């Protein structure tokens, strides 16, 4: 699928603090229009290890690995994505005289509707992670559509309603062509296309294309308080995104074995040392766990991924030490951007 340009994003997971500001920026900008979008988070932040959003999306499959395409699961909103609820803030926080005059049930925050059955939500297992004290661990993984170079959603649609823009490689669903067949949702192994049951059509992350057209960053990137994102075109050698992916080679793809060539990259997170019974050389987040998620290419083996991640950690540590000694490091300069213009070059 030839494009003239391709937007890319690099997210530095070392700096993601799981605040969901990216999610909320996206939500308020794009998906609070109608009831059918309530369950949608075009940008979501999930805790890893964890089930993710939608629940267990990594095992649902896509066009790349499933011969019987009809067998690919379509998760339901309540059990897979989460039915949004409201809290009784008015009742609890705006009473006269406080809790004393209220019954217990009226003084406790309760969700409405109450999550029932196998309820779920986009951050249901937030901060759960794995491991036991003092070596428990988790990290945050912000996810948007990967605007893949080989997007299976485009192939999956029999109506050419899903398309990849030539000018910037952004993948969009033509809201007028879409008939709500949901083949694209089955096709996408990242489950980053959503179904709007009110409009009866599919909707997805648009990489804030109206902003990109004005050379502004997408909102998840510009609003990020941790400034974890670098956005640029794949061929723009001056952009931080290019340098991190192509020069310093410290950014990896999420599940490259899905064979879609995603254009969102991640710098894998370093973590504190394991304590057993003293501090050891091992990192708390096992490299094997990271290697299950991140890699360079679809044909890389698990062991090769482990080596690559270790190599990235070596590079980052070396460069950090340089700066600690008062020397300069191009990598650290890129990773600590001083202005939005340093991070976002579109």
């Amino acid at each position, binding site marked *: 699928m030839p494009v003239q340009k391709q937007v890319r994003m690099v997210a530095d997971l070392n700096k993601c603090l799981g605040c969901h500001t990216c999610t909320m920026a996206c939500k308020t900008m794009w998906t609070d229009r109608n009831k059918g979008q309530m369950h949608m988070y075009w940008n979501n932040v999930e805790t890893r290890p964890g089930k993710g959003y939608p629940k267990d999306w990594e095992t649902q499959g896509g066009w790349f690995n499933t011969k019987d395409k*009809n067998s690919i*699961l*379509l*998760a*339901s*909103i*309540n059990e*897979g*994505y989460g039915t949004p609820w409201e809290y009784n803030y008015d009742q609890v926080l705006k009473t006269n005289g406080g809790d004393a005059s209220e019954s217990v049930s009226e003084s406790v925050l309760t969700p409405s509707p109450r999550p029932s059955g196998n309820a779920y939500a986009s951050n249901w297992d937030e901060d759960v992670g794995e491991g036991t004290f003092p070596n428990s661990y988790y990290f945050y993984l912000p996810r948007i559509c990967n605007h893949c170079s080989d997007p299976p959603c485009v192939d999956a649609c*029999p*109506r*050419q309603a899903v398309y990849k823009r030539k000018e910037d490689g952004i993948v969009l669903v033509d809201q*007028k*062509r879409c*008939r*709500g*067949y*949901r*083949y694209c*949702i089955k096709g996408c192994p990242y489950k980053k296309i959503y*179904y709007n*049951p009110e409009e*009866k059509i599919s909707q997805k992350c648009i990489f804030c294309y109206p902003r990109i057209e004005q050379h502004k960053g997408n909102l998840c990137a510009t609003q990020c308080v941790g400034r974890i994102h670098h956005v640029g075109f794949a061929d723009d050698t001056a952009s931080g995104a290019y340098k991190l992916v192509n020069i310093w080679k410290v950014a990896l793809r999420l599940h490259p074995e899905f064979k879609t060539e995603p254009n969102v990259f991640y710098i894998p997170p370093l973590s504190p040392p394991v304590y057993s019974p003293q501090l050891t050389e091992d990192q708390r987040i096992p490299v094997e766990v990271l290697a299950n998620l991140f890699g360079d290419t679809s044909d890389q083996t698990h062991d090769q991924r482990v080596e690559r991640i270790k190599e990235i950690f070596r590079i980052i540590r070396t460069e950090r030490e340089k700066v600690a000694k008062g020397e300069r490091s191009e990598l650290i300069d890129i990773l600590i951007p001083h202005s939005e213009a340093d991070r976002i070059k579109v």
Partner: protein
Amino acid sequence: MHNGNDIFFFYQWNAATENNSVADYPIFADAIAMEIPLFTEESILCMGAMDKPVNIIFWRADLPVPENIVAGGMGTPQISPDEASQNIRHYQKWKDGIWDVIITRPMAAGSENQVSFVRGKNYRIAFAYWKGGAYAERGGHKIVSEWQYLSIR
């Protein structure tokens, strides 16, 4: 059946469940459609062709009204944009495992995006059926007939 002004198509078929909603990711609705060449005598069964477009009347159990669709080849069907051609009405009822659906529209075309039904004329017509629910049939995933004949007396 027609009364000189309006034409009526009556469909009845067995359906174990009433699938009349598309309100969640895994939920699909029952649907039927009829396809008639728009201005040529014949056309390609699979959504017509550029120079031989087809007119489709599409009923799906969750839709407020059936849709008037035009197509000029695979992957091209679209709801005709003019209001005048969205003149189709219907009656639907599912009871005891049987769907009854009556589809009606004026015999005269509302616009150029619609076939005119003229007395004494013969038409090619093809039918499609989508089984919703757990079968999740939609789009090209359906049962289609060969071209049949429709004679308006």
